[in-house]
């Protein structure tokens, strides 16, 4: 069925190079692993250190201050639900993965996005890369990550970071491109130094679109983190996997509902920031 003449396995061809990478760059990868694990563990420990009710209270208060009453109530309900389902630890694991991943994604994507809006040649180079990155399904990122970092949280977060960059980058570029030219001109005309123009003029005017980018980044990262439960990332994804593979429907359902709760929480909070930012209406 498969004439040996035509047999060609790029995988077999490339596999040795991955092995080579693994052996030669091992210290580098080990260092990255260590660093990532340290940050994640620290974050997780912080979240789990606070007793659940305390943390819920903190989040509710923060939500109330930053967004509004409805968001605060929703936050309380969602987190309370996770607690009720007996999945507090797993939820916190998932949340810490998402938070750390999004922070790093934004740190990488934001500056590049701003540069892309300023320099069209850079944007032209970056755009096809982003196109490919967004066509490719999420789990593809898991493959190289797992191959290098083995199973566990590290490949999960690395894949998530990479997956979260394109939407944030694209929307950052869009946000800055959409700032009306007259405001940039204003900045020049009043003799504002470039940093002032960025912080005082461009960012405030780009805020709405930037927040949309953040919202997208958060949701996609959550999807990826859940998926990464397949490769030993822990968290709610692992619980779903366990429920599925062992046909423990109760566990699976609880984990699934907890994921819904977390997704709602993150989505409403980030969108709430967006609405809050709307301008005072004209009379």
């Amino acid at each position: 069925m498969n004439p040996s003449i035509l047999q060609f396995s790029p995988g077999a061809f490339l596999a040795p190079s991955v092995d080579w990478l693994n052996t030669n760059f091992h210290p580098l990868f080990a260092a990255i692993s260590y660093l990532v694990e340290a940050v994640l563990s620290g974050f997780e420990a912080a979240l789990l250190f606070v007793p659940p009710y305390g943390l819920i209270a903190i989040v509710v208060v923060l939500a109330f201050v930053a967004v509004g009453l409805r968001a605060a109530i929703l936050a309380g309900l969602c987190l309370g639900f996770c607690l009720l389902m007996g999945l507090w630890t797993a939820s916190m694991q998932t949340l810490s993965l998402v938070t750390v991943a999004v922070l790093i994604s934004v740190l990488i994507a934001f500056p590049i996005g701003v540069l892309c809006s300023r320099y069209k040649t850079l944007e032209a180079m970056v755009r096809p890369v982003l196109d490919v990155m967004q066509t490719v399904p999420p789990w593809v990122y898991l493959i190289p990550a797992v191959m290098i970092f083995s199973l566990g949280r590290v490949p999960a977060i690395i894949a998530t970071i990479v997956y979260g960059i394109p939407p944030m980058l694209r929307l950052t570029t869009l946000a800055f491109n959409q700032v009306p030219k007259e405001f940039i001109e204003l900045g020049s005309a009043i003799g504002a130094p470039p940093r002032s123009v960025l912080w005082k003029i461009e960012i405030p005017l780009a805020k709405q679109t930037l927040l949309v980018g953040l919202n997208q980044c958060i949701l996609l990262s959550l999807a990826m983190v859940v998926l990464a439960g397949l490769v030993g990332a822990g968290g709610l994804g692992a619980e779903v996997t366990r429920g599925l593979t062992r046909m423990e429907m109760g566990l699976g359902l609880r984990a699934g509902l907890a994921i819904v709760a977390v997704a709602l929480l993150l989505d409403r909070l980030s969108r709430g920031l967006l609405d809050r930012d709307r301008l005072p209406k004209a009379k």
Partner: protein
Amino acid sequence: MKTVTADINDVLIDCQSLWKVFGDKSAAAMKSIKERGLGKKEVLKEYNCVVGVSEASLQVRRGEIFCIMGLSGSGKSTLIRLLNKLITPSAGKVLVKGRDLAALSPVDLRQMRARNIGMVFQSVALLPHRTVLENAAFGLEVQGITKPERNKTAVAALEKVGLADWVNRYPGELSGGMQQRVGLARALASDPEIILMDEPFSALDPLIRRQLQDEFRQLTKALGKSAVFITHDLDEAIRIGDRIAIMKDGVIIQTGTAEEIILNPADAYVAEFVAGISRLHLIKAHSVMRSVAEFQQSAPNSDIASLARTTPDADIDELITLTMQSERDAIAVVDNGQIVGVVTPRSLLMGVKGPSAHDLPAASTNWS
């Protein structure tokens, strides 16, 4: 319109042979223009570049309001942006307060823009998420001035434009005219010597426009500032400006006072523009009077000393009134106690009507 005499010797802005060519190959095109004297069409064909401003020279004196008037595409928006180097010239020099803009370091240029040259935009560009006060203080904020101080200055500026009660509102709550006043306050807050105004009143409705034109002129003169004001409306230019430059296709066709332009339009294009302007208040006695000798020749028996008198600055409207009130046929124009000229009804009529079209050169076509 009272005019505070501008100081002819104190030139704040000096433009020398400014050129601006837009396009990828603008440098090469500029070179060709200098060497071969290419026209606009040829530049477009050969280099795919557009000539925005060509060979523009002008001077703005201290305390003077200088209007640049032209239709869309005349290059006036480009020219005003050359004055604070928002656009870099392809050739020529811009000297502000004696300093060459091209020679300034980026930091010095920013300082110049922050402290010496203010700008008001057509679209106002008020930051929507900041209050009126914060917007007015914005220019000071980027200079690093502390909050209490800059707020104080901003409030004073807002008082000057009559918006002191609106300090805590947001731009979205203000009408177009009020927003434009905030823009002006913002420019005034830094106390620059020169204010550049880019068609600030074009987007407003006619009655508000009139009001703002008058207010602006009064305020600028009271504060002793110079202004460069661009507009497509000749009426506005005459109302506001001490001197006017008329632009077409990137070239300054004529520069002068309203009176000079109306009396001596440089070509048929300018003449057509001024045709609709009422000359009653713009033409003065000194432009229509006959010399004493001429008058004595045509009316030898007239006693000049007993004619009704007026000053050289009297406009046609006054002269007509005087002529109708007097029983005689002429008015004597007196300057410093001396009779310098006589205004006859005939010369008055000539002043009202203006020169006829075929006395003038055809509209400049060197750029077609």
